[in-house]
C-alpha cells in the first residue's frame, strides 16, 4: 500500500549503508545539512551499531516538501558502501529506485534486481589514484560519494562547498583534499550518468527560522540557560552527548571572563548511583544540578530517587531512552522507561516526567525541569529517547526571554528565616502542599536534619503511623498539584474526527504524518501528544471526548497506556495500543497500517505489535 503520491521534486528517501569508524558520518551529515540549507524539510536518522569500528551502520535521509519527514521504509536511492550488507540493503530499494555503489569491484550477480538502476562509481579506485595516505583514501571515499550525490540529486554545490569550508577553515590541507574528493565524485557522476535523477531537490524557503539540532545538544543548552552549575554523570549511550554538549557550552560561556575561573563543575562520577547522589547533594545545597543517563542508569538510581522524593530534594534526571531491558540495544530507540521513571524506587513514589517530542522541546523542557524540581522539591525526569536525542531534527529556532528568572520555589531567604519564630521543614504552606525549605549556611535558625527515614511534618524522626501518613499524603497531593504546572498535552483536532490518537516522545513526527495520511484516506482522527506526567485535565478530557483512542508508543508493554489507565479516570476499554518496539525510529506507514488494520475489526483493547 502506498500512502503518498510522489511528486518527483523534494520528495524521496535516501539510505546510506556504511561501515562504522570509516568517517562516513561527516559526509552523510554534510548532505543532510546542505539539503537543510536549501530550505527543504529534511530528516536524517542514524542507525548505528554498539561498536566503535568495522560494523555496518546506516544513515537515512528523507526529504519532503510538505514537511513529512518521519522515517521511510523503502528508498529511492541506496548509497551502498558496505559490501557486507549489499544483500539487505539492495532489498530495501523501492522498485524503480537507484543504487549508488563502489564500482571499483564488480557487484555479485545474485544481487542484481531487474527493477532497480545501478549507478557504479569507482570510488576506491579514484581515491587511490588521487590520495596517498591510506587513512585519507578511506575517508575521501565518503566525500566522493557525497560529490556524486550532489550531481545526482541537484544539491546546491555552492552550499556544499561552503559547508566544507566552514568545517576546515583552519585546516587548509584537509579543505583541499575534501574539495578534491567532492569534485571527483561530482564530475564522475556528471560525466557518466544522466543527472539529475528523476527525483531531485529544488530549493525552497521552509527553513528560514529553523535550525538543525539534536535533542541532547538542546537539553545541554537548556541546562546552560537554566543556570546549572553542577552536573554529574556516568558515560552511557545515548546520553553521553548531553554532557559532552553541556561541557562544550560551559567551556565557551561559563568561563569567567575576568578571572578565567569556571562557573560550573562537571563531575564524571564513578557510577550512576554516585551521579544521582552528587546531584542530590548539590541541589540540597541550592545549586541547579542534573545528571543524564539511560535505562541502566535509572535502574541504578532507584534507591536515591526514593530518597530525593521522600526527603523532598529537587533533582533533575535526563533519561535518553534506548532499547531495554538490560543492556539491550544501546544504539536503538524506544520509550520503555516510562513506568520505571514514573514510579522509580521502592515504597510509594510518583515522579514528575517531562516528555519532549523534538529537540526544541528538549530545550524548553530542560529549562522547565529545574523550575518544576525547585518548585515541587522533587525529582523531575526529562524522558527523551535516542531518536530525539542523537538525530538532527529541523526545528524552529530557539527563543529566550531575557526576563526569565529561575523559579526557585519556596526557598526561605535569610530575612524570612529571621522573621520566623521557628522553622519546621515539612509544613505545607498557605494551603499548598509545598513546604518552604532553607538552604544550608543561610541562617542559624534555618538548620534542620534531612533524612530518608520516617519523619513528621516538623522534620523530626518519627515511627508514629499518623505522623508518617500525614507527610506521605501531602507528597501525593503535591504530585497532583504539579499536573497544572507541567507542559500540557499537545492536541490537534480536526473536523469529523472519529477517534483519537495519543502518542509520546520521538513518535511525534511519524504519528502526526500518519494522522494526516489517514485523513487523506478519509479516516479522521484527533491527535494528542502527552508531554508530561502527572497528566493535566486536558488529557482526561481528550480521552473523554472520544469514543476510543489509539495509543502509539515504542515499547512492548503499553507503558504510556498503562499510565493513562492508572492515572486518569478514563475507562481502560477506550484505549487501544499500537506498539512498535524494534528499535528504529517510527515511520508513519507502520502507524497507518496498524491503525487501519485495527479499525477493520471491532474496536477493542488489543495490543498489536509490529516488527519495524
Amino acid at each position: 500500500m502506498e500512502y503518498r503520491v510522489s511528486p518527483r521534486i523534494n520528495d524521496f528517501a535516501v539510505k546510506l549503508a556504511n561501515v562504522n569508524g570509516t568517517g562516513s558520518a561527516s559526509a552523510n551529515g554534510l548532505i543532510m545539512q546542505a539539503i537543510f540549507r536549501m530550505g527543504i524539510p529534511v530528516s536524517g536518522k542514524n542507525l548505528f551499531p554498539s561498536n566503535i569500528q568495522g560494523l555496518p551502520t546506516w544513515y537515512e535521509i528523507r526529504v519532503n516538501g510538505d514537511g513529512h519527514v518521519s522515517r521511510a521504509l523503502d528508498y529511492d536511492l541506496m548509497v551502498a558502501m558496505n559490501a557486507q550488507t549489499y544483500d539487505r540493503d539492495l532489498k530495501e530499494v523501492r522498485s524503480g529506485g537507484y543504487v549508488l555503489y563502489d564500482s571499483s569491484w564488480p557487484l555479485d550477480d545474485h544481487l542484481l534486481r531487474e527493477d532497480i538502476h545501478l549507478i557504479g562509481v569507482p570510488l576506491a579506485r579514484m581515491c587511490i589514484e588521487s590520495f596517498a595516505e591510506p587513512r585519507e583514501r578511506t575517508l575521501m571515499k565518503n566525500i566522493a560519494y557525497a560529490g556524486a550525490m550532489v550531481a545526482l540529486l541537484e544539491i546546491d554545490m555552492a552550499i556544499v562547498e561552503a559547508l566544507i569550508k566552514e568545517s576546515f577553515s583552519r585546516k587548509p590541507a584537509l579543505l583541499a583534499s575534501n574539495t578534491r574528493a567532492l569534485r571527483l565524485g561530482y564530475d564522475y557522476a556528471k560525466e557518466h550518468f544522466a543527472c539529475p535523477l528523476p527525483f531531485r531537490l529544488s530549493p525552497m524557503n521552509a527553513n528560514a527560522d529553523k535550525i538543525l539540532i539534536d535533542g541532547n545538544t538542546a537539553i545541554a543548552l537548556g541546562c546552560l540557560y537554566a543556570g546549572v552549575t553542577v552536573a554529574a554523570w556516568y558515560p552511557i549511550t545515548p546520553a553521553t552527548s548531553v554532557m559532552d554538549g553541556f561541557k562544550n557550552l560551559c567551556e565557551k560561556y561559563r568561563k569567567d571572563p575576568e578571572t578565567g575561573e569556571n562557573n560550573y563543575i562537571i563531575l564524571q562520577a564513578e557510577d550512576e548511583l554516585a551521579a544521582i547522589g552528587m546531584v542530590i547533594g548539590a541541589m540540597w545545597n541550592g545549586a541547579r544540578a542534573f545528571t543524564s543517563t539511560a535505562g541502566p542508569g535509572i535502574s541504578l538510581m532507584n534507591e536515591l530517587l526514593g530518597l530525593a522524593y521522600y526527603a523532598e530534594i529537587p533533582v533533575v534526571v535526563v533519561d535518553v531512552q534506548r532499547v531495554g531491558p538490560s543492556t539491550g540495544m544501546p544504539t536503538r530507540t524506544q520509550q520503555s522507561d516510562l513506568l520505571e521513571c514514573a514510579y522509580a524506587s521502592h515504597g510509594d513514589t510518583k515522579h514528575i516526567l517531562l516528555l519532549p517530542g523534538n529537540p526544541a522541546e528538549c530545550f524548553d523542557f530542560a529549562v522547565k525541569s529545574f523550575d518544576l524540581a525547585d518548585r515541587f522539591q522533587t525529582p523531575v525526569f526529562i524522558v527523551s529517547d535516542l531518536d530525539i536525542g542523537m538525530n538532527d531534527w529541523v526545528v524552529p529556532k530557539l527563543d529566550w526571554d531575557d526576563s526569565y528568572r529561575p523559579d526557585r520555589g519556596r526557598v526561605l531567604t535569610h530575612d524570612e528565616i529571621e522573621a520566623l519564630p521557628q522553622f519546621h521543614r515539612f509544613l505545607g504552606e498557605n494551603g499548598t502542599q509545598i513546604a518552604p525549605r532553607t538552604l544550608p549556611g543561610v541562617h542559624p535558625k534555618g538548620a534542620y536534619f534531612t533524612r530518608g527515614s520516617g519523619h513528621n511534618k516538623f522534620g523530626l524522626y518519627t515511627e508514629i503511623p499518623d505522623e508518617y501518613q500525614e507527610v506521605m499524603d501531602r507528597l501525593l497531593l503535591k504530585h497532583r498539584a504539579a499536573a497544572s504546572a507541567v507542559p500540557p498535552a499537545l492536541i490537534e483536532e480536526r473536523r469529523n474526527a472519529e477517534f483519537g490518537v495519543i502518542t509520546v516522545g520521538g513518535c511525534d513526527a511519524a504519528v502526526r504524518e500518519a494522522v494526516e495520511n489517514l485523513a487523506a484516506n478519509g479516516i479522521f482522527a484527533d491527535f494528542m501528544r502527552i508531554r508530561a506526567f502527572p497528566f493535566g485535565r486536558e488529557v482526561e478530557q481528550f480521552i473523554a471526548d472520544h469514543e476510543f483512542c489509539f495509543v502509539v508508543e515504542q515499547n512492548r508493554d503499553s507503558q504510556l497506556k498503562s499510565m493513562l489507565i492508572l492515572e486518569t479516570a478514563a475507562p481502560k476499554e477506550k484505549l487501544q495500543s499500537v506498539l512498535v518496539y524494534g528499535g528504529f525510529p517510527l515511520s508513519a506507514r507502520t502507524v497507518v497500517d496498524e491503525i487501519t488494520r485495527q479499525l477493520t475489526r471491532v474496536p477493542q483493547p488489543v495490543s498489536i505489535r509490529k516488527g519495524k
Partner: protein
Amino acid sequence: MPSIAKPAVLHPSAQRNELGLTLRDYEGSMSTLCAGCGHDSVTAAIVRALWELSVEPHKLAKMSGIGCSSKTPAYFVTGAHGFNSAHGRMPPIATGANAANRELLYIGVSGDGDSLSIGLGHLCHAIRRNVRMVYIIENNGVYGLTKGQFSASADVGTKSKKGEANRMAPIDPIQLGLSLGATFLARGFSGDKEQLVPILKAAVAHRGFAIIDVVSPCVTFNDHTGSTKSYLYTRQHRIRATETDYVPPATEILTEISPRGETAVTLHDGSVVRFSAVPADYNPSDRLAVAKFLQENAADGRIVTGLLYVDEATPNIHEMNNTPAKALTSVPWSKLCPGAEMLNALQEEFR
C-alpha cells in the same frame, strides 16, 4: 535516628569560645545509641573540636549514610544542617554538596559497613577527587544497626559473639587510602579523646579529603573476648604512633615549632600540625614510609593510632576544577545565563 529532647540543664563548664558559644551549643539531641557505645565518645570529641575551633554552627554540614554511626550527626551541633542519607551513599552526596557550596564545613560520619562495603567504591572515588571534608569512619568491625554481622574491617580470626571466626582479609582504610593517593589519613580510638580532638581540628583545616578511621567499639555486638575491636583488645594492642598538636593560623608565629626536633606540617590556611613523640625518622609526608610503618605494625598485631599521613600539595576538587573561591551557588544570574542575544548568535552553528 530517633531524637529525644534533652533536659535543659546547663552544662557545668559554661566556658565560651571565640563566637561566645559554650560547649553545650555544639551538642545535639540526646543519643539513642547503646550505653557505652564508642560512637558517643567520638561525638563528644567532635563537639569539643568544633567548639575549640569556633565553627559557626549553621556553616557546618553534617553528612552521613545509614548505621548506628550514621545516626550520630543528630547528636552534635543541633544548629548545623544534617543529612542522614542512604546506606553507603554519603560520599557522592557530600561531593555534590561540596561542589555546589565550598564555603561550608563538611563533616561526614560513617561506619565500617557503610564505608567499606556498600559504599567502598564511592569512598575510593571521593579520595581521588580530594573532596574537602572530614570523613570519619566509626570502625567497630561489625554492622551495629543490623545486629552484629562482620564488616569488611573485621580482622582475620576475630570472633563474633556466637564464636564464629572471620576468615577474610580486613580492609584497613588507612592502607587503602595510601594506595589511592589519599591526602590526610589518621586513626583514632574512641576511648582516647585527647588524641582525637587535635586530629579532628587538623582535619578541619586540611585542604582536601581527611579520613579519620576511629576504632569505636560496639558494646552490644563486638566487645567480647575474641573480638579484635573490643575496648580491651584495642587498649592492649594499640600504639599512639604519633602525637599531634594543632596550632591555629593566628597563633602560628607565636608558637615555637619543633622545640625537640619534632616534625611539623603547615596546612594551606597557615595552621600547623606539630608531630611529637613520633617514631624515629617518621615522616608523615612520606607515603612509602608510612605504608611500611603501618604494615609492619599490622603484621605484629599492633593498632597504630595518630595522625599518620598529610599531603597538603595535592589540589582538591575545586582546585582541580578551577572553580571560583566562593560557592558556585553564589555566582550571580548574569554570569550564569548567556542571554537571548547569545542564544541567537550561537544558533548559527545549527544551520
